[in-house]
């Protein structure tokens, strides 16, 4: 029963409720008798059509702080650098993960694991800027993060939800990147805590009252426009139209996780990250193009930056991410959405092979992992390799530009396009790099 709600919502197209009616009319016309019987399969078909029309979506699972490759998807059993994590088999013969990832391991057939990221930056702020924008940090220019480029590409003024949503808070705000030179119009809509709608979104008065008030304020604005305030009124109107569509949208329900069955919520895990992954699925289902879910761990504010006590903290962090990640992939797959949704697991770098006395590892940018699934990515493959002690990349080094160019290909964006910033400066979407072709082969 609870499953019916999201599926019904699926049939709402990007114009919200008005077009829900049109959708039924269209379906009605399609069946000669004019009688609509919406069965499970019809819904799945409708959903697939809808997603196709909207283009592909991307969910970025961001491991804030930089997770250890040894303790995730590239264990080096037998090496003195490995530490206490053991290896476990996955659903693909010959591929092993660290044993903190039992559920994800069972979905290896859906994963393409890149083990050979090699990047120049090993300080958080610089690495985050580089990895999240595709460009090396420079004081001269604020490059936009990839989600903002997607928001710009997919901007649809008739769509009632934001194109780019971020769930969870970055560990350290100052290291964050945003829409930068693209301007606030393309910045993310931030949900600090999944299941809790951010403040000021939900109207405190009934929808009718809000509409009545908006109509009244419009009349006063017209007066001001005629008295010399035309420019300010036009500025205001464009943002108020968009805001009203959002805060009055029936799709605000998307943010309400109570509508999901308890069993599914439990499967994702009752953590910020787990519930965030569930919300990500609900948003993508509603046509949101780019969702970012941040993992910092609920226990402390060190996140994946496990310099100290890494052997103590990493299992806790993985225990939050493993069930959430695996359930997300399975859930998307069960709903026929995985083909249209690129799911990426990554952080800003990996961690040193050398182990500190208390079991921590420092920053390391050679041979760190990125994992991708869905949207045409062939699962069950490993791309690139590091040596037996995990010191450096021995095969297929991948750069940040390669990664961004690959994201562009999936999202149907022209990586060579030049766009213009708010101050009219021409900028490239991606500079250099090559698509990682074997992902799709």
């Amino acid at each position, binding site marked *: 029963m609870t499953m019916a709600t999201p599926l019904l919502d699926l049939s709402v197209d990007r114009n919200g409720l008005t077009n829900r009616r049109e959708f039924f009319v269209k379906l009605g016309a399609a069946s000669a008798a004019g009688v609509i019987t919406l069965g499970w399969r019809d819904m799945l078909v409708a959903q697939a059509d809808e997603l196709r029309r909207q283009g592909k979506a991307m969910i970025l699972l961001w491991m804030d702080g930089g997770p250890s490759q040894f303790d995730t998807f590239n264990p080096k059993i037998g090496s003195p650098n490995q530490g206490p994590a053991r290896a476990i088999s996955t659903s693909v013969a010959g591929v092993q993960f660290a044993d903190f990832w039992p559920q994800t391991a069972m979905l290896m057939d859906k994963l393409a694991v890149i083990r050979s990221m090699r990047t120049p930056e090993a300080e958080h702020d610089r690495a985050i800027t580089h990895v999240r924008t595709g460009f090396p940090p420079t004081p001269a220019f604020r490059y936009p993060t990839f989600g903002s480029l997607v928001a710009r590409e997919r901007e649809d003024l008739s769509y009632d939800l934001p194109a780019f949503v971020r769930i969870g808070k970055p560990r350290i705000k100052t290291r964050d990147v945003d829409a930068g030179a693209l301007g606030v119009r393309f910045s993310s809509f931030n949900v600090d805590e999944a299941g809790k709608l951010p403040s000021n979104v939900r109207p405190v008065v009934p929808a009718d009252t809000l509409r009545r008030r908006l109509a009244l304020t419009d009349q006063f604005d017209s007066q001001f426009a005629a008295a010399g305030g035309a420019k300010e009124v036009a500025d205001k109107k464009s943002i108020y139209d968009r*805001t009203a569509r959002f805060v009055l949208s029936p799709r605000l329900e998307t943010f309400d996780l109570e509508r999901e069955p308890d069993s599914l919520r439990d499967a994702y895990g009752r953590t910020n990250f787990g519930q965030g992954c569930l919300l990500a699925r609900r948003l993508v289902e509603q046509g949101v193009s780019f969702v970012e879910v941040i993992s910092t761990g609920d226990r402390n504010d060190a996140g994946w930056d496990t310099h100290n006590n890494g052997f103590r903290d990493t299992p806790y962090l993985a225990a939050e991410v493993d069930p959430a990640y695996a359930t997300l992939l399975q859930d998307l797959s069960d709903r026929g959405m995985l083909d249209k949704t690129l799911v990426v697991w990554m952080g800003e770098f990996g961690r040193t092979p050398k182990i500190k006395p208390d079991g921590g590892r420092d920053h390391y940018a050679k041979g760190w992992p990125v994992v991708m699934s869905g949207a045409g990515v062939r699962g069950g493959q490993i791309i690139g390799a590091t040596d037996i002690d995990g010191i450096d990349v021995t095969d297929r080094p991948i750069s940040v530009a390669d990664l961004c160019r690959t994201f562009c290909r999936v999202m149907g964006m022209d990586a060579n396009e030049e766009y213009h910033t708010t101050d009219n400066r021409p900028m490239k979407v991606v500079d250099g790099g090559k698509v990682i072709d074997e992902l799709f082969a």
Partner: protein
Amino acid sequence: MKCRSTLFLLLASFATFGNAAEPAASTLTSARLDQVFLQSAKLDQKDVAGVVTDEQFLRRVSLDLIGRQPTPDELAVYLLETSDTKREAAVERLLASPEFGANWASYWSDVIGYRVPPPELTFLDYTLFEQWLAGRINENAPWDETVRMILTATGKVKDHPEATFVGFHGADTTRLAAETARVFMSLQIGCAQCHDHPFDEWKREQFHELAAYFVRASAKMPWNDSGEIEIKDKGKGEYEMPNVADPTKKGTMMVPAFLTGTKLETGKTDIERRKELAAVVAGRDNPWFAKAYVNRIWGRLMGRAFYEPADDIGAGNEPQLREVHQPLTAHFVASGFNAKSLFRVIINSRAYQQRLAEQSSTSENPYAAGRTTKLRGDEVFQSLVTAIDLPNVTPPRTAPTKEIRFPPPPKSTKDVVAEVFGFDPSLKPDDISRTLGQAMLLMNNDQLQAQINARPESGTALSKLLAAELDNAKVVSRLFQLVLARKPTESESKIAMEHVSSQSGRGDAFEDLLWSLINSAEFTTKR
């Protein structure tokens, strides 16, 4: 005659009396400013839109000087005045208000703060700096002296808030070189850090010579509390310009030198270096210092600076109204960097008091009418306080623990509003966007909505007004005065009264009205 001293000042500033108080030759009057303005803008007096009404004037000048609209009482008292110099007198009252310093301290704190990259583990709090600067501005301390204090401060920020600029930049040599030039001289020399400037005359060496003044300053960044940031002398060291060809090789040692060519020898202490820098930056011989200040103030008051963006008066940027900028700068220098005197000359001019263009206006000349500007974040907050008594609530502070070492400091209502509506004041006005967050805050914020409550038990100003005033037309008028600091026009009254009569509940109708005025484009705009 409470205005006696004021009048004296006014007369002095008009400079038409050849008595002992005769001002220096370069002193400008508002009347002279208007002549220069018309000439420079190629306008005839007959083409100009005319000046704003008294109501409009008081709101405009209150927003510009004290950062909020006038209260209905302030407006009423002002409208009753009959003196020919009531506008000048109002300007004097506002310049004397402590809110003047607070408003402009908040402007400068934004100018500096929007370009300070927050350090990783310290939360920067500008409150102490703003309090210190507000005090200086209210005393009308000369701007050159204030800037010298900012550039030479040492010690802890909590004891010496003027140390904020150097301290919050972590005493970083290159950041301070770029920001000292940008904030206090409106020069963009930042790109000369890596290469010669493409448009302006700056050479790479000049950037690094400027950075060399800061090389012996150090600032320790404590965890969490920015008041504990302490600026000290490193006691040794000279500045090296990095080797571009090979950054691993040793750079070139730079002698501290200012952009105009003034040099200092090496081996000087931190304070000797920064004192020397402060003297050349905030000095009469610096061709950019006064010009930059005047450009910013004119920009904020008029809605458009001579040079846009306001922090770029370099040779590569073509100014507007150069012939106005020059005498205003000369006036500012001649007055001994007297800020209030500059405000007075501009605000008492017809140029400042121009009305907005009516829709029927046909003039193509952008200077033939006034210009709207968006209110700054703090101005929006203060205006909400004035309009609906928005309370300023601060949640309790969380102490750091072993697990959560960096709990973000709590945000007060003022912080929230200022952040949502805030913008970098150095941006071009056209680049300042309205946002989803701003619209949502005015539409839905529960604290704000609680003030838009007509029920008697709510105790709000609206509920009291409705209980005390049974005449709906008077309530309409009062709400316009509270929120927009003016009486409604005839058609606005009509719209409001029609709305009131279309609703069954009187309370509901006036809640709608108050909400609509708070959410009007005009409320967050200076007109």
